[in-house]
């Protein structure tokens, strides 16, 4: 009987119900947008902190020229210093080798395509590498640059002329997967033209227009066998603490005990230090600051959105309160009748609560749908990425929206309790 009554009374006063649903959907929309964005972007930033954010960049050591101005280093030969590719497996031999998730070496040069200057980078995509311990490791852009979005295939890591072209450039040159195009390279022997085949179009997030090719192929073309310009290393690191900061200020100031502790902790700096030990003549630097400040901005945006959501939810509650009180007053004859027939306050309150619950559920679902759409807009415009579907958001939003419905009914409860059947039934 209760559900029969609920069903029929729910279909009553559609306009008010619709208004209530919209009110709840409004709060639920913001809540679901914020939750979707927070959960997903949070994950993405975490991933980036792990793979990219905590990255180290390894470059040939700079040599300051003696005629330098004090404090400014100029190394005109920077582009002509290389790290030997053979040395790379040593990165996986350091004390914290298990924290090294992978790395991507690269070698870049400028090439011309139809008179346009374009950056061509040779790199590893998903290279199988044998470490001196005998283990093998697959690493390269595919596992490190998780945010790369490739449409098509990844090139193979051999000396085939396969290319991954950045989206903007592909548009500008009007080339698509499967197309072949000519690039003019400058080598020590002079200019030469080679054919490349597009196997994939990549969106890397930044709007540079460049081309990625297998490292081996480019080394061969340039006659720079075994040479790379830099290596990006992805390492799991321990957050910095006082010791890490002290070491960063001046490594020599550490006592030998402190040094021991520092060396045996996976600080980004101690890993960098160990890489410098493993490969002579290189400099390893942390690349974390960028991602960290991104994280800070993100958490500020999240805080702002969370506040907005709280405000929206509160105003939803107030809106529902008004609508519920109005609906109770409108239906006072009906409520009076229930009481005259012997209903206590609770069963009548339950009926209205149940209605609020249903309104909350519907409003929550609608709000979730719209909110997920909003999340995409926020994702695209603020973080320039789509927001993944997170199942967890649905129950949270439904919980919030039914909570809003129920809380909104509380103020109407007083009206129900105070209602005297004798007064309403005789039309006074």
């Amino acid at each position: 009987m209760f559900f029969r009554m609920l069903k029929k009374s729910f279909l009553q006063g559609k306009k008010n119900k619709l208004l209530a649903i919209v009110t709840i959907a409004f709060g639920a929309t913001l809540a679901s947008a914020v939750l979707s964005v927070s959960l997903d972007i949070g994950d993405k930033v975490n991933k980036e902190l792990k793979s990219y954010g905590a990255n180290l960049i390894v470059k040939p050591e700079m040599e300051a020229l003696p005629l330098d101005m004090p404090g400014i280093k100029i190394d005109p030969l920077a582009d002509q210093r290389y790290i030997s590719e053979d040395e790379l497996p040593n990165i996986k031999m350091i004390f914290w080798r298990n924290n090294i998730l992978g790395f991507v070496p690269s070698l870049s040069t400028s090439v011309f395509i139809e008179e346009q200057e374009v950056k061509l980078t040779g790199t590893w995509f998903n290279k199988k590498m044998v470490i001196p311990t005998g283990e093998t490791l697959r690493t390269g852009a595919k596992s490190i640059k998780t945010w790369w979005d490739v449409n098509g295939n990844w090139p193979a890591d051999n000396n085939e002329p396969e290319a991954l072209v950045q989206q903007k450039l592909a548009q500008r040159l009007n080339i698509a997967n499967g197309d072949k195009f000519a690039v003019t390279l400058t080598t020590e022997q002079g200019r030469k033209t080679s054919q490349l085949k597009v196997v994939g179009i990549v969106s890397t997030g930044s709007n540079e227009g460049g081309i990625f090719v297998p490292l081996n192929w480019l080394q061969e073309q340039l006659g720079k066998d075994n040479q790379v310009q830099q290596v990006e290393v992805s390492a799991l690191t321990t957050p910095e603490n006082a010791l890490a900061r002290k070491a960063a200020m001046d490594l020599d100031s550490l006592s030998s005990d402190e040094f021991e502790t520092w060396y045996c902790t996976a600080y980004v700096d101690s890993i960098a230090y160990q890489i410098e030990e493993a490969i002579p003549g290189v400099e390893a630097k942390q690349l974390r600051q960028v991602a960290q400040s991104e994280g800070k901005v993100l958490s500020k945006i999240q805080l702002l959105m969370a506040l907005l959501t709280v405000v929206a939810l509160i105003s939803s509650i107030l809106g529902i309160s008004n609508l519920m009180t109005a609906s109770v007053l409108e239906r006072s004859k009906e409520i009076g009748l229930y009481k005259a027939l012997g209903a206590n306050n609770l069963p009548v309150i339950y009926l209205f609560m149940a209605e609020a619950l249903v309104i909350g559920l519907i409003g929550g679902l609608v709000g979730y749908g719209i909110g997920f759409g909003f999340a995409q807009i926020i994702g695209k415009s603020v973080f320039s990425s789509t927001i993944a579907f997170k199942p967890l958001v649905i129950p949270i939003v439904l919980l919030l929206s039914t909570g809003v419905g129920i809380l909104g009914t509380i103020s109407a409860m007083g009206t129900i309790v105070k209602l005297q059947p004798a007064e309403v039934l005789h039309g006074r």
Partner: protein
Amino acid sequence: MSDIVTLQDVYKIYGKVHALHNINISIASGEWVAVMGPSGSGKTTMMNIIGCMDTPTKGSVQVDGTETHKLNGAALTKLRREKIGLVFQQFHLVPHLTAVENVMLAQYYHSMPDEKEALQALERVGLAQRAEHLPKQLSGGEQQRVCIARALINYPSIILADEPTGNLDKVNERIVIDIFNQLHKEGHTIIMVTHDPKVGQLAQRQIELDHGQLVYSGVV
């Protein structure tokens, strides 16, 4: 015969208005009483007190052996549920429930809804065919019969009807009065407010109120 309703020195005072002023009456079980009097004389006020929807300002009230003037809201509700069947001038059917559901509503708040029994109650008032209709699809007379079926469904000790024919035409008035006649013959106690002397004459006894005071009690 034993008295089912007794009012002793009952007052109901709203500010300066004495809606009821020193009322003393007893109604026997199985009796049919018509309550008459001009508008504002206190008829509805008295019915509310007998019907456990209100308590007197002063005085004592007994309904089927219970002293209601001492009861709190919840106990009054319980007594109303158990003992009283209410028929209203404006019928007061729930607009979005069908005829049979309106009857079942009384069962639901009393104990357990039983659709078969509710249909039987509608059959008694000649509305078996209209069970699935909504109130707005029924005529005034039919609505009032649903209201009577609802009042009877829980076997109340007392049926209280406040101007049950006030909103009906002659034909429907006849039908409804016949039902009350039938109920009276079956031994129900009926207290009915009416403005119509002809309807009042059908009752065993007439009571007349004026300015909250009992001015007449007896057979016309």
